[in-house]
């Protein structure tokens, strides 16, 4: 059975269509979930897509964490199911304290839309199983606030716990420890600034993003299989 993917749509989300298209290329079944709903449909994976959730005139993601759907998203994560926040979604996850740290303005104080290279530093997460350890993925970034930061003890704990899953090969935004993507302690929540949904079609320059989405779908399939 195909994995079911719920894509949360905030009023200012703008990558939801792209996420749907790229997950559907991998034969997943997708459904949009309006931020104002207070329950999630029956889904295996929740995606918080990129965009500007509530316009982000305040700190990015600061309002989105209060959207009614976030309670259900929290419960989904606590149940050990997969949750991925991409770009603005990563910012929302940090604001909602589902992931550690915070995202500051890029070091160069400019919005940046460009291809980036990410190194897979932790294999064996539900998000990186299809990739080899050390494999470099070509995935675009598109953000103004991607400069991740956490205090020293938090960073040490995360390193020890293998939570820094993806690092930039050539840090574009000043992110601490070259962080591009991190997981929670349990490993079922990933936040990343680069956009894997933009790298699932060779005509657009790369299919490496499909390794991340594909790993998630494999993980769901394995769990579903184990349950049966």
């Amino acid at each position, binding site marked *: 059975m195909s994995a079911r993917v719920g894509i949360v749509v905030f*009023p*200012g989300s*703008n*990558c939801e*269509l*792209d996420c749907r*298209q*790229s997950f559907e290329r991998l034969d997943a079944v997708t459904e949009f979930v309006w931020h104002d709903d207070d329950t999630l449909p029956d889904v295996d994976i929740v995606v918080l897509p990129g*965009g*500007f959730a*509530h*316009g*982000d*005139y305040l700190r990015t993601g600061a309002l989105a964490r209060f959207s009614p759907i976030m309670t259900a998203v929290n419960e989904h994560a606590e149940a050990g199911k997969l949750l991925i926040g991409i770009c603005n979604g990563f910012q929302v996850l940090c604001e909602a304290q589902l992931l550690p740290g915070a995202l500051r303005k890029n070091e*160069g*104080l*400019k*919005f*940046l*839309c*460009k291809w980036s290279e990410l190194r897979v530093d932790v294999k064996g997460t539900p998000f990186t199983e299809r990739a080899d350890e050390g494999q470099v993925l070509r995935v*675009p970034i*598109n953000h103004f606030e991607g400069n991740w930061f956490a205090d020293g003890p938090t960073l040490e704990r995360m390193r020890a716990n293998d939570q820094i899953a993806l690092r930039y090969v050539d840090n574009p935004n000043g992110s601490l420890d070259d962080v591009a993507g991190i997981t929670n302690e349990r490993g079922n929540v990933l936040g990343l600034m680069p*956009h894997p*949904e*933009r790298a699932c*079609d060779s*005509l*657009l320059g790369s299919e490496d993003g499909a390794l991340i989405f594909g790993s998630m779908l494999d993980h769901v399939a394995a769990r579903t299989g184990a349950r049966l």
Partner: protein
Amino acid sequence: MSTAEAVHRDLGLTDDEYQAICDRLGREPSYTELAMFSVMWSEHCSYKSSRLHLATLPTEGDRILVGPGEGAGIIEVADGVAVAWKIESHNHPSFVEPFNGAATGVGGIVRDILSMGARPIALMDPLRFGPLDDARTRYVVDGVVHGISSYGNSIGVPTVGGETVFEDCYAANPLVNVACLGVIDTKLMHGRAEKPGQVAVLFGSSTGRDGIGGASVLASAEFDEDSLDKRPSVQVGDPFGEKLLIECSLELISRGLVASFQDLGAGGISCPTSEMTAKGKTGMRVDLDNVHRREPHMEPFEVMISESQERMLAVVEPDDVAEVVAVCGKWDLEARVLGEITSSGNVEVISDQTTVADVPSLALAEEGPVYERPAERPRWIAEVNASAFGDDAPEHYGDTFLRMMSSPQIASKRWIWEQYDHMIFLGTVIGPGGDAAVIRLPGTSTAVAISTDGPGRYCWLDPYEGARLAVAEAARNVAAVGARPTAVTNCLNFGSPERSDVMWQFAEVVRGIGDACRELGTPVTGGNVSFYNETNGQPIYPTPIIGMLGVVGEPAKAVGIGFRDQGDAIMLLGASELDDFGGSDYAKIINDTVGGTPPHLDIAAEQGLHEVLIRGAEVGLFNSAHDLSGGGLAVALAECAFAGDAGFSVQIGGTEPHRALYCESPSRALVSCPQGVVDDVLALAGGAGVAAEVIGAVTADMCDFTVFATPLEEARSAWENGLSAPLSTTMEAG
């Protein structure tokens, strides 16, 4: 002299225009009426100085579903797939307040596209600035780019290209044009209120005092020392509101709730209420008390002409109002019934139970003044045409090449386009930095190529020839990726139409565009005229920006500019005239000269080249293709090398090799292909009557021109830093 009469001049109306209003109404207008006329009869809204000329442009073709006069032109690009394509200017606001001026320019064109029932899917921003050694220019560049980036990125529409030019004449009058491509979502809409009894629903942002007089005060007058005091006339954008407006509008249309539709832009509420009823031969009773406002105590005239952004007007059946309001509510947008469609033929405006305006729609929207302004070829043209072309040989070839590559004119525009989201929607097959952007239309296997071009120097030397060259180059850009040039939108940026020399330039440019578009079979589907681009009596170069749209057969066959494989043959297509230096980048950058005459365009040669490029792409002959334009062969070679991360070795000979390197003869392109298909390319070119020769091969890491050679990395570094270095200086200083 009555009060109203004394006031009309402040509103930008002439004494004659005021008299015409009195004659048409048979009485003196009320203050609110006068304000409405002042925006609707402004140059910006009425095209009163340009209309006679624009009427000569070719506007019809097999694929053209909607031509000029609506929110945007509509072009059928495949069976059942139609796109909207339109360009606008936001020049004056962007100089006065760069960030918001540029941002709201994006917002305005996006709503034009949306008003046709199309989802906006790509933006292009042709920009013109003064030289970067001026601090205010650096501030304007930074603000404009940030404004476009902030607005375009937030609404989730990719900005996929648009050229940037630096020239003295734009220092006190930068140009910020913006083109938008949309794809019809569920239904093509028209801005025409045809049925009395239907109601007009105003939805989106609230109405405030921002942007009062934007069309009449800012866009329809030239600048002087006090222009920066006009900042309150610049609107402030809310991209989040625009994003909601896009989704909400498309949902209303897809639910079949909307009979007709128009955006609010220049002229505020006055514009759609009069235009929709004039086109539909109806009238409208407008109740201003139903306009939701962001500040109290607004006068009726202010409500009628406020250019507050992010608003739309939908004409709907009375029974559907509740559902319309509910859909808007889902998107957190306020929606209220503004008025009712009547059969009176008048726009009747009621405020606090008092009629404050009652004027015929036609008088406002279609019966504005039309001027046949005096146009005279200025004497200085002959002197300039007889002056030096600036084609003197350089002292040192290697240094000259690096100076060319590092000049902001030619240097990489990465600093600009990396600030734009150019990838969202997963449609950007070829993005910024190429000849044309190639955009795959969502949910289809069809793609279109879009490009903008506007050679101001050529047009200053010879507006007719310059305009033809503009059309030809825009078409060549599109053909270079393998697309067939199909339709044109244009933005005509000029000085004051009240000057006979400017009007002559305008008339010549329109004649040139018309002739070239007729000959290339690319009708004009609409556009925009921006006059009064002058400061303290100094007009800009006549700058027509041509936005060309082409149809791509298969997206996967689109050809990029980067060299691909070492050993590939490099071929030059088209003939070079070695004295084509008038208005060239070489003359300007190396010899600081703008003089002589621009190159001459041979349309047959241009068309032949397009056939070779399009057919070659179709059968997959080329590994790269790039048109030759500013900086000629040398610059084109280098750009192919940087894009493909490969070097080249070409044989450049002759006694004055700088001529072959930098002359700007039109109708030429550079292609690379495997050695095995060189004969096929020669045969294809021969059949089309296009000169073709192998000039060298793709190599590893040198730019080798025979007469000199430069390491690829050195050339690339000059090119990459040419624009970013001067602009980054401001950041460090700040």
